[in-house]
């Protein structure tokens, strides 16, 4: 049936589609299905799911709008796209919340059935935008999705409420048709996973899906279809993965690579909870997950696990870091391996808990009493969370130190196609518990300045540790002034020395020139795309994305000096910017925003071009 159409087909390099509807409308599922099908079709892609803050906001309200954007292309894709080319709006609230983003000239598909007086009012419309001419900048396709769907599935015999709920599959079918996609993947999914749970609903959804496809194919309304050819993608097996899933898998991999038992102590918090959920399912791999009474207990138990010889992980978000900071300081002092994973969200305070932000950097670097150096690394894409988790664990056990791993709400919930790694090819993480009582000194150090890991149960290694300052080498309590000074500097040097093990900075684009774009974390895609655009516009631009934020790479100062201007782009008010200025006295420019949203490619390109132009 997929090839039955007779309509003409136009080819595009890239397209971004946003599905938007009420939170009950199944937009996330719709988006995920479209993503998987698109990936199977061989496009490169990026996605951005955007949930409402409430569990169940009132039906039809602006607060209840749920969206999912997918950007797919025949070339490399870095972000979910600044402006969608297509918007599917399942109700007036979805239209109102999203229309400002739609590209002028873009396609709008709206479910007319929902545009009654009551729903218009709920969305804050005084007249019907589908009729009042206010959408003249777009190509509007009003479709009575609800009723067509209901007719299409009438014979399945679902009750009205359940029947109405299948309309997202109609919309999905229609969009599949529009972008010349095969239904196969989604059909299989419906017949498999969904049918297993609810065969009747599966039957109805299948019909709705096909009805949507047929509607596109047969109605006069749609005169043509679009096509986005395959991209050139590194060969291999792929799957879609969210940042939180990749993080969970990364720590599982680290456990396997080190042979250690994974322990997660956590207290649920948006947007980090899914890591806890994922790992809770892996008990068969020997993973112990402990849902604690609060963030302090979570890290407390994790410290206990680190002390006892486990691969110790605690996960949280910004407010949780604030609560954990006293205990983070203890584990820094104990010099035990432990990873604190901070999935950043919009702050300050409770802030915008479901939105993304990069504003915990200074907190994790400095938010503890006394001189308390802790390594910090950040993941730059959903899939990269996997490797960052392994890197965090490696640093922790090799250098005997707590490590902070930063991700953010955008990475956590965002998904990307991800080349499945092969565990057999990944380097092991060597771990050695100390055993020899004769050579044992609790605070003796190796070439990394790491102390021995001496776990309970080891005969002859009985010793006491704690948060009071300790004598160099022996680890006994010491109030000696010079010892304290020396220990503070030793701990700082231990973290600084990690830089020796790091590869040199890898700059994308021009190795010197007008502008160096510096970023970290989940902004990678936008900065890369912005850099590409600016280079295409003829500027000499490099993009450096930092994974290691403490210690910073040894050659960073040199790299910064190779460009006339340094732009530090962040979703905060300039935290890495502040750090680089202090460290390198570089008169960098801060490009920042704090809107709970990722950068747009165009914003970055504009900023680069502006600063490349000004010959300051």
């Amino acid at each position, binding site marked *: 049936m997929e090839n039955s159409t007779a309509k003409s087909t136009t080819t595009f390099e890239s397209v971004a589609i946003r599905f938007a509807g009420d939170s009950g409308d199944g937009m996330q599922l719709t988006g995920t299905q479209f993503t998987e099908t698109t990936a199977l079709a061989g496009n490169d892609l990026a996605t951005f799911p955007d949930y409402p803050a409430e569990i169940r906001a009132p039906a039809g309200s602006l607060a209840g709008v749920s969206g999912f954007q997918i950007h797919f292309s025949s070339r490399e894709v870095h972000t979910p796209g600044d402006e969608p080319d297509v918007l599917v709006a399942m109700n007036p609230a979805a239209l109102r919340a999203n229309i400002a983003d739609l590209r002028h000239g873009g396609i709008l598909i709206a479910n007319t059935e929902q545009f009654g007086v009551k729903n218009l009012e709920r969305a804050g419309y005084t007249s019907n935008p589908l009729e009042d001419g206010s959408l003249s900048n777009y190509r509007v396709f009003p479709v009575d999705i609800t009723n067509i769907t209901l007719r299409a599935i009438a014979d399945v015999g679902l009750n009205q409420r359940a029947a109405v709920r299948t309309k997202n599959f109609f919309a999905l079918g229609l969009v599949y048709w529009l972008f010349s996609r095969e239904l196969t993947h989604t059909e299989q999914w419906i017949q498999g996973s969904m049918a297993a749970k609810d065969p009747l609903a599966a039957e109805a959804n299948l019909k709705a899906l096909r009805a949507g496809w047929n509607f596109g194919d047969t109605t006069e309304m749609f005169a043509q279809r679009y096509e986005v050819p395959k991209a050139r993608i590194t*060969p*291999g*097996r*792929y*799957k*879609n993965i969210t940042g939180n899933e990749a993080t969970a*898998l990364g720590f*599982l*991999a680290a456990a*396997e690579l*080190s*042979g*250690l*038992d994974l*322990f997660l102590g956590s207290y649920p918090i948006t947007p980090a909870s899914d890591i806890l959920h994922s790992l809770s399912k*892996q*008990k*068969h*791999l*020997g*993973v*112990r997950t*402990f849902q604690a*009474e609060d963030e*302090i*207990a*979570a890290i*407390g*138990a994790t*410290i*206990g*696990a680190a*002390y*006892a*010889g486990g691969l*110790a992980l605690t996960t949280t978000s910004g407010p949780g870091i604030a609560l954990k900071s*006293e*205990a983070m300081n*203890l584990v820094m002092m104990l010099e035990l391996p432990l990873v604190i994973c901070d999935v950043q969200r919009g702050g300050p305070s409770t802030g915008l808990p479901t939105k993304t932000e990069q504003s915990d950097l200074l907190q994790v670097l400095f938010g503890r009493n006394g001189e308390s150096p802790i390594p910090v690394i950040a993941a730059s894409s959903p899939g990269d969370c996997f490797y960052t988790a392994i890197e965090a664990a490696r640093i922790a056990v090799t250098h005997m130190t707590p490590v902070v791993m930063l991700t953010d709400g955008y990475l956590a919930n965002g998904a990307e196609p991800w080349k*499945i*790694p092969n*565990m057999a090819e990944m380097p092991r993480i060597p*771990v*050695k*518990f100390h*055993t020899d009582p004769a050579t044992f000194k609790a605070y003796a150090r190796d070439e990394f300045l790491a102390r021995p890991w001496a*776990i*309970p*149960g*080891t*005969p002859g*290694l*009985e*010793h*006491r*540790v*704690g*948060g*009071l300052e300790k004598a160099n080498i022996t680890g006994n*309590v010491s109030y000696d002034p010079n010892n304290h000074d020396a220990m503070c500097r030793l701990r700082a040097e231990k973290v600084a020395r990690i830089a020796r093990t790091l590869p040199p900075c890898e700059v994308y684009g021009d190795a010197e020139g007008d502008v160096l774009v510096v970023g970290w974390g989940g902004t990678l895609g936008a900065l890369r795309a912005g850099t590409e655009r600016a280079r295409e516009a003829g500027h000499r631009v490099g993009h450096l994305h930092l994974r290691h934020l403490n210690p910073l790479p040894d050659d960073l100062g040199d790299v910064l000096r190779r460009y006339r201007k340094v732009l530090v782009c962040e979703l905060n008010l300039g935290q890495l910017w502040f750090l680089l200025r202090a460290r390198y006295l570089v008169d960098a420019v801060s490009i920042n925003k704090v809107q709970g949203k990722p950068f747009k490619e165009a914003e970055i390109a504009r900023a680069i071009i502006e600063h490349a132009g000004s010959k300051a």
Partner: protein
Amino acid sequence: MSVQAFLSEISHTDPTALGRKDFQTDQEIRWCPGCGDYAILAQVHKTLPELGIPRENFVFVSGIGCSSRFPYYTNTFGMHSIHGRAPTIATGVKVLRPDLSVWVVTGDGDALSIGGNHFIHAMRRNVDLKILMFNNRIYGLTKGQYSPTSEQGKKTKSSPLGSVDYPFNPISLALSAEATFVARGIDVDAKGLGAVLERAAKHKGTAFVEIYQNCNIFNDGAFDYLTDRKLKAEAELRLEHGKPLRFGLNGEKGIALDAQMNPMVVDVAAHGEDKLLVHNEENAALGFFLSRLVAPEFPTPVGVFRSVTKPTFDGMMEAQLEQARSKSKGGGVQRLLDAGETWTVE
């Protein structure tokens, strides 16, 4: 390397050869001369070698306070952690390592003030921990402020006109937090304390022991009403499972219920021994009732308030892992990586 693999490679020391000296350390003890902590330390050092556990398998975790310096003076694995958080750390140790004997040493401030929440949650979960709370009814280390067990009206540095706080009853609190073993001992009562410590050590699950401890610097004599030789017989009610509640020099007094279900002190001879309450370590409500016997109106119960057996948190966690492992199809992490919707790009 996993802990299991590691443990299989080492061999444990012989616990039968241990004596109290083996548990002493070379660290100078930094408690005030005369502090009740010394007596408790001695009892613990006496109890540990009797448990048949290799020395390297003991872990003592403490918070902050005078009492929390305990691990430095006990030659086992130990951690002097941060204020109030010892139960959380101990939980992590025990959950990862059910093979270890894990102890928490804490004070009335550490456990019930800043640490109150972890305290009740550890008990709720029935993690197999031995929690020794040295109750001196004062903050010792910070030089004498009232604590959550200080009596109302107490004048301290931070309450010069007398504290208006009502105290917690730690035994009531532990019972309501579902602790499976709850007992009380007294620093100077070596025999009674020793017996309680031994039972606590052997209990599977959270064992809470409140130990009355004299802080001779900031709250001297707080327990004189109970420890004074002359008053002791009248002031102390020794709890014995299955025995009627009697006290007094010759057990001539007893505890019974009045018509309102409130406790009353009775003359055994006059009232009849069969009408006395009988101690039952398995009845939580009775334990709670006993915890409400407070001086000076009533004698102070000493000994075991409650002792019941319930699966432990760590044990159930272990069982769940075992079960999941036994059902697993194997394949490790690669299997998870490969799972789900995938596609291949050639």
